[in-house]
């Protein structure tokens, strides 16, 4: 890295004094996510940095908030990385997209949307990347509850019976019990835990 994080901070403070930044280790946290595209354009076009290559976009769940983390490099000047991060609350996780500036964000933002539910505003094609449309929940969030793969639920039972498959009585009964208690069949904790 031929520049330090402080240089970037200083330069940004001069050019865009309204943007609040905070240094977290080797990275810069942009306090207001709305400012992210401006910072990105600045970094991309400023001849001192020329960060023309957005290597990685990823999300992370810190229980109270979600984070979107960006790793920038420069192909022209062969330096980097500069790490930017923005934090958004879980209930309204919207971050402006970087796709108009960096095409490389396209699939990665879709991935972060898929796994963490971070909505990238302005993304041209924000669909789930890996999971299917209609999948509920964001599986990499720490509070994601996985389904139990061995217990049939009423939806399964009715689906199977509509197709002429006989479902054993005890499975039917268990599904009905679950339904009556208003619970979903979720992955269970170990019965005899080892660790």
């Amino acid at each position, binding site marked *: 890295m031929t520049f330090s994080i402080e240089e970037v901070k200083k330069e940004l403070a001069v050019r865009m004094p309204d943007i609040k930044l905070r240094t977290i*280790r080797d990275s810069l946290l942009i306090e207001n996510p709305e400012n992210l595209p401006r910072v990105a354009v600045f970094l991309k076009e400023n001849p001192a940095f020329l960060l023309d290559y957005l290597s990685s976009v990823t999300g992370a769940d810190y229980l109270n908030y979600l984070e979107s983390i960006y790793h920038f490099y420069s192909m022209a000047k062969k330096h980097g990385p500069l790490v930017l991060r923005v934090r958004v609350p879980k209930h309204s996780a919207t971050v402006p997209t970087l796709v108009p500036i960096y095409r490389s964000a396209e699939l990665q933002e879709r991935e972060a949307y898929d796994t963490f539910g971070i909505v990238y505003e302005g993304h041209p094609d924000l669909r789930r990347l890996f999971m299917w449309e209609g999948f509920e929940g964001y599986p990499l969030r720490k509070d*994601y509850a*996985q*389904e139990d*793969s061995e217990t049939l639920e009423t939806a399964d039972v009715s689906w199977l019976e509509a197709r002429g498959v006989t479902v054993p009585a005890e499975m039917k009964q268990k599904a009905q019990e679950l339904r009556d208690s208003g619970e979903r069949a979720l992955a*269970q904790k170990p*019965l005899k835990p080892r660790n």
Partner: protein
Amino acid sequence: MGFTKNKAGVDTPLRTELAKKGVVWTTLDFLYNWGRRSSIWPMQFGLACCAFEMIAAACARYDIARFGAELFRASPRQADLMIISGTVTKKMAPQVVRLYNQMPEPKYALTMGACAISGGPFIDGYNVLRGIDRYIPVDVHLPGCPPRPEALLHGLMELQKKIASQEIQKTAWYQKGLKREFPIPEFGPNGLIPKFNPEVWQPSKENPRREHYGQTILVGKKLKAPDLELAAAPQPAAPGAAA
């Protein structure tokens, strides 16, 4: 959509009846089985890592062609054997079942590798199907991660042995009124609907893994998030990795 199990039996009186005119049937059986087992054309269908070992088995060193099985057909209509080589994800499972349905009888399925058998190393994932035998009957299970190409050849020979022991009157696909077509699962909000096909597979009563570890490894469920700001500054990087 009618469905019956793989093993359809012939009632005993009929069998004794047949035993009398054994010679013809035995010869027929032999010819039929010999033809089928000497010309098993697999489907060109690779899922994941194991597919590479499957290709390696078709390549010069192992040469599956010696068994007459090198004609990997891309169209399921012309294939006899489906080598399920790799992780079947929940997103992929409907397609696998559909492909199996599209194959003409007699057809066989071989699960190659731990992932296809049980979910393997990825068993705890939210998008990983825990064994394709939940939806379709599997003829040969071939463990390993991935199995060596030789192991695939071994599996193929096991399948040949299995075919050789079949009898033409008892094979499921020649029974009257039976249609071996398996319902194709659909995408649901949390996973596949149904979770398994109880006519093909049912969870076993004893499942030590489930008892010991639960259905997901819950070790990683943490209650406290790290605070990168408060923690000490990072140590200098290894000198070998100097920029």
